[in-house]
């Protein structure tokens, strides 16, 4: 059965890029436009993995990560960030994110990282 991915980013362009990379490999894609939207969609869809942008309006990716993992300790979250956000990435990892991607990214790296995360069992 194909895996579902929730792609969270406030920039439609970034969502489109990740969608294109993953959809080609057979993933089912859902999208959310900010942290709050991500939390709602997560609970509704229960995707296998979330790619989470960090800096977003309404609710940041860090906050969404915390809320999602609070509701579902088994949630797999992969944070996506711009360069120079090292502190936030570390904070996300502290809060249970499995891995991270740095923009701009190569398609192969996105696929590789998503695949690796799906093989990992998050510690609840």
């Amino acid at each position, binding site marked *: 059965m194909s895996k579902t991915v929730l792609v969270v980013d406030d920039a439609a362009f970034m969502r489109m890029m990740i969608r294109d990379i993953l959809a080609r490999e057979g993933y089912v894609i859902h999208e959310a436009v900010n942290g709050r939207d991500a939390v709602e969609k997560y609970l509704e869809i229960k995707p296998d993995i979330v790619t989470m942008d960090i800096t977003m309006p309404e609710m940041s990716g860090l906050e969404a990560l915390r809320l999602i993992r609070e509701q579902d300790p088994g949630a797999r979250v992969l944070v996506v960030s711009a360069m120079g956000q090292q502190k936030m990435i570390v904070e996300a*990892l502290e809060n249970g994110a499995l891995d991270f991607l740095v923009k701009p990214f190569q398609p192969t790296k996105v696929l590789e990282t998503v695949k690796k995360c799906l093989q990992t069992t998050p510690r609840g």
Partner: protein
Amino acid sequence: MSDDMTAYRDVFLSESAEYLQAMTEGLLALEAEPNDLEPVETVFRGAHSLKGMAAAMGYTRTQELTHKMESLMDTVRKRVQVADHGLIDLMLRATDTVQTVIDDESGGGDAVDIAPMVAELVARTAGASSAPGPVTHHGAGESARHPSDEDGARYRIRVSIEESCVLKGVRAYMTLKRLSHMGTIIDTTPSAREIEDEQFDRWFEVLFQTTSAPEAVRNAVLAVTEVEDALVERVETAPTAPTVPAETGAAPASPARSVPKLSDTQTVRISISHLDAMVNLVGELVIIRSRLERVARQSGLPDMVDALDALQRVSADLQQEVMQTRMVPVGNIFNRFPRMVRDLARDLGKDVTLITEGLDIELDRTVLDEIGDPIVHLLRNCVDHGIEAPEERQAVGKPTRGTVTLSAEREREQIRITVTDDGRGMDVERIWQAAVARGLADPATRESHSESDILLYVCMPGFSTVDKATRVSGRGVGMDVVKGKIEYLGGSISMRSKRGVGTTVSLVLPLTLAIIQALLIAFGERVYALPLGAVDEVLGLEEVNVTTIDGRWVAELRGGDVVTVQHFDPTEGLSAPGAVAPAAGDHLVLVRSGEETRALIAPSLIGRQEIVIKPLSRLLRGLHGLGGATVLGDGQVALILDPRTLFRTEG
């Protein structure tokens, strides 16, 4: 101890002190903001690094103690328990114990027993696990993964990261985190801090102890994204050979091949006695130079005058450099005050935060060493007398937590240190009455005293002995000592206070003590040096209009200002202001002393010169109007006039 060990010891000592300081600051920050996880990490990492360093030095008691501190902080970190006042208190006392034990162990001693402190730490750590608080997502069961230092085998793991990796530091962090779930990270090269700051090229090394198989360790590391390779190599668990810690701080490196090159270091440690000797020698050089100049001028050798010009430039540069090496940031002493204020406040049942500002402002080491005690005194006064008890503050609508601010600012060639509190302030009228009652002030002169003048009465010797009932604000205790010290250092003190709002004490100090520019004046046979900082202008008699007002000799300046003429005689001292008129050929030197400027009669001006201040002998110290002595170019000793006390006739 082997020779190698001795070489590392000094580095260990200064670095461990830095860690303990960082931990103390972290604990205080945590106490102020119990939900802030950043200081928790700082304290945790500090204990962790100290543990690794102590292990490398073979300081087993330090190692055990810091290990227990690390374990306790780990419970806070994982939110198994909160850092309440009791825990912070325990950790602060533990850092004190660590310092004592380090002193003991580094001196080869065996006197300090850590058992009681270890027992307390263990009890508090265990207390946490038996009654867990809110547990976060990744907390449960995690502590079980930490084997004790005695368990398992030790490995050196060399981890290389893909070249294309963008955030190597975070990858390394993920690797270390993963490893910490499988065993104990004893040490890393470079330090954990440097690794997280990406201060490594393609690879870093971890000294790791675990019960897991080496293959499992390798696979765990390789599972981290963008890790290129991991070499796992078994090392003996016998005491690790000490290694050279990196200059930038953090733990000593793992043994053998990965020792950081000493040549990487950009700084050297110089003993203070060397610096003092250098200043003295430069001082001598300045004196000899002026002597040579004198000889050259008298003998009229133009070539020599040229050469001396060059010497003048070089020696000025040298002097500048030497003085610069003696400059240290005030943070060096300011950093220990937050802890002191906290402890004092707790003893008194008060709630006080100390805010420090301008920590990177630099000051000559001799000045800095001297002002520590006065500042402690001012801070104690703030906490003890300035800041009210929490109930009292609440009653008047202030926040229950009082704030004391200690700041340093650079003002040209001076530094201003201010201590401000938001406490009850001082009562100017009562201080005035007390000063009158003690015979320190003349009641008739009330009008001519500004509020800040009156506040300064608390710095008068004799004021502080006023007993409790009439103690006014209690500010007086020891303030005479503080003022004396600051003035001895060539500084001044001033105060501002508003009832119910708070008090500010400002200290203005010279950046350096040793060498100053001075105007040399001959009074008869004797030569005196007047610090140029206090001289506004030197005027010939033809440039002013000398006249009398109410029987006093005054000089009317071109701008229309009128200043009192002041006569000075080496044997007689100061005459009454305006009592003596200048004679033909005299100059008038406009000297600032506090708020007042007077025209000092200078019978003969010798010129401007750099002088090296030599402290006065005990006999002459405190003598009115004198601030030290110096040796002139011709070998003659000149006394230095102290502009701050020069015009004071009452003493």
